[in-house]
Every structure is written in C-alpha cells, then in structure tokens.
C-alpha cells in the first residue's frame, strides 16, 4: 500500500502535460461560469483599490464590495494552490524548458539555468527577482505597473481575454490578446536584451 501511495504521489508530482493542463483550465472556466461568475483575475486589483478606500475619491473604484469579495477569495485560493503546488506536489526536477532557450539565457543574458532542484525550480530567475537585488526590484515593480495598468485599460488579462473572452468568441478579446503578444515580443526581443544583455 505504501508502495502504491508513493507511486501515485510520484505521478501527481510530475509536471502535467500541456494538453491535460489546458483541459483543466477550461474546466475551471466551466465551474466558474456554473458558479455564476465570469472568470478573470486582474479585477482583483480594482477590488483591492476599492477596499483601500479609493472609491471615496475616484468613482471608478466605487464598487459594491459585497458583490466583489469572491474575486479576493479566488486569489487567496490561488495563493493556497501555489503553496500546495510547490510544497506538497512540487516537481522533483526544475521546469524542463527547451535547450534553445537555456542556451540563449546563458549566452545572451549570462543567466545560468538550474540543473537540479537544489539550484532552483525554474519558475523565476531567483538571482534577478529577489528582495535584495535593486535591478530586479525595479524591474518587478515596473512589470507590475504595466500589468495593472494594461489589464484595466484593456478590461482584462490573460484569464479574462485569452481564456474567457476567446471561449465566448469575442472580437475585442482577440485583438487584446494580439496586443499582449505585440507587447510580449517587444519586451522579449528588443527591451530585455538591453537590460539583461
């Protein structure tokens, strides 16, 4: 029985195949819709602004908070899911990204990729993004600003547009997602080489 438990834990701890992962994400859209809400994460920032009292000064944040707390419940759940996904069923190996990407990181950014789990999980570049690296702190804050500003201006993020909006065959979502890729490609190919190269 112990042997069986171990095997099941091993299986669940492996990284999930993209097709299975995509299906589970669609399933989350399904149960969110069934539970009565349109799936989207970035509105949580708007709710937090409102909770901090921004509604008194700016009508945009004047929300009926009772109707919005589910968004906070969702993101708190996402944090808990992250704890489970890393502490309980975390993968035994770092994220298996392609060799081409590893070569580019090493050669162009001088960013060695973790070879085993003791060196890093392959989730974020920890040498850059930590609380003691001034450059990383600056980039993290800048990135957060772009995401928070762009998501609200565009009325949604990857979950609200790329998953929910596209699933409802929405043209605004399609063009917003195209915008996501324009910005992502500019950052990856033009700006990051300047700051990390």
């Amino acid at each position, binding site marked *: 029985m112990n042997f069986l438990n171990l095997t099941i834990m091993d299986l669940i701890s492996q990284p999930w195949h993209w097709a299975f992962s995509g299906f589970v994400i669609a399933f989350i859209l399904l149960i969110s819709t069934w539970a009565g809400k349109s799936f989207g994460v970035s509105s949580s920032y708007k709710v937090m602004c409102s909770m901090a009292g921004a509604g008194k000064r700016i009508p945009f944040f004047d929300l009926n908070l009772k109707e919005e707390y589910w968004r906070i419940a969702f993101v708190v759940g*996402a944090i808990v899911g992250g704890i489970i996904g890393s502490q309980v069923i975390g993968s035994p190996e770092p994220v298996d990204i392609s060799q081409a990407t590893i070569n580019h990181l090493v050669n162009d950014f001088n960013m060695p990729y973790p070879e085993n789990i003791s060196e890093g999980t392959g989730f974020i570049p920890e040498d850059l993004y930590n609380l003691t690296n001034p450059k990383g702190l600056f980039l993290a804050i*800048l990135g957060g600003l772009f995401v928070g500003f762009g998501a609200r201006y565009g009325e949604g993020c990857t979950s609200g547009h790329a998953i929910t909006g596209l699933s409802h065959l929405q043209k605004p979502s399609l063009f917003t997602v195209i915008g996501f890729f324009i910005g992502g490609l500019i950052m990856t190919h033009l700006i990051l080489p300047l700051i990390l190269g």
Partner: protein
Amino acid sequence: MKIIRFFLIGIIFGIVMSKSEAISWYRTHEMFRFESIHMYGIIGTAVIFGIIFMWAMKKLKIKTLDGEYVTYVPKKFHLPRHLIAGTIFGLGWALVACPGPMYVLLGHGFWIFALVILSATFGTYLYAIVRHKLPH
C-alpha cells in the same frame, strides 16, 4: 457561499498553474521566443475546450447555481484601445508575470511577488486617474 466556492476554484487554479508550469517566467520567455509548443498548447487546448463548454452551456440552456442562463456581456469594440492596452500588458507579462501567476508565485514563496501585486494594484489606480485622457 460564493466566497467558499471561489476560494476552492482558486485552489484548483493555483495547482494547475503550478503543475502546468504556465506561471514560470522561463516558460513565458520560451513562448515569446517560439522555442516550445508548451504554452501555446496550454492556451490552445484551454480555448478549444472553453469554446465547447461555453457553447454547450448556452445550447443546452444549463442554468448557473444562481439560477441564470449563461451569457457574456460583450465589451465595446475599440481597436486602438485593445491594441494599446494589450501591448502595455504584454510588456509586463514578458517582464514579470500575468496577474493569476503573480498570486500563485507568491504561494511558491517568492516574496517579491507581494511587491509585484502591490505595484499592479497601483498600476490599476494610475489607470483610473488618467483614463479620461486615453482613447476608449
């Protein structure tokens, strides 16, 4: 009740985002360099099943737990807005992460994401201040 429902859905979301590696900065970087099918596969599969699920819920007139039919309130089409806003968001996505992954990465113990979330919240506040000057 809605609070508990969405807390539980959030947990499933956090787990799938972790196990799918979709929250990985490296996976995102790899995607924007077109060096793996991984992220495209995740998003593509999610959208294909999402289309089927939403179509089926509408077609079969399945009611939500609140007793309502599934609808989607369309957003106003405004091409410059979608492209400009999307591009600003994309810059941040490739630099750090999407909103959902920010929370999940915080759960992974990367404390800097508390700061990223705070900063994104401030970015939302900034938008509200300048929104009347932007094309909508």
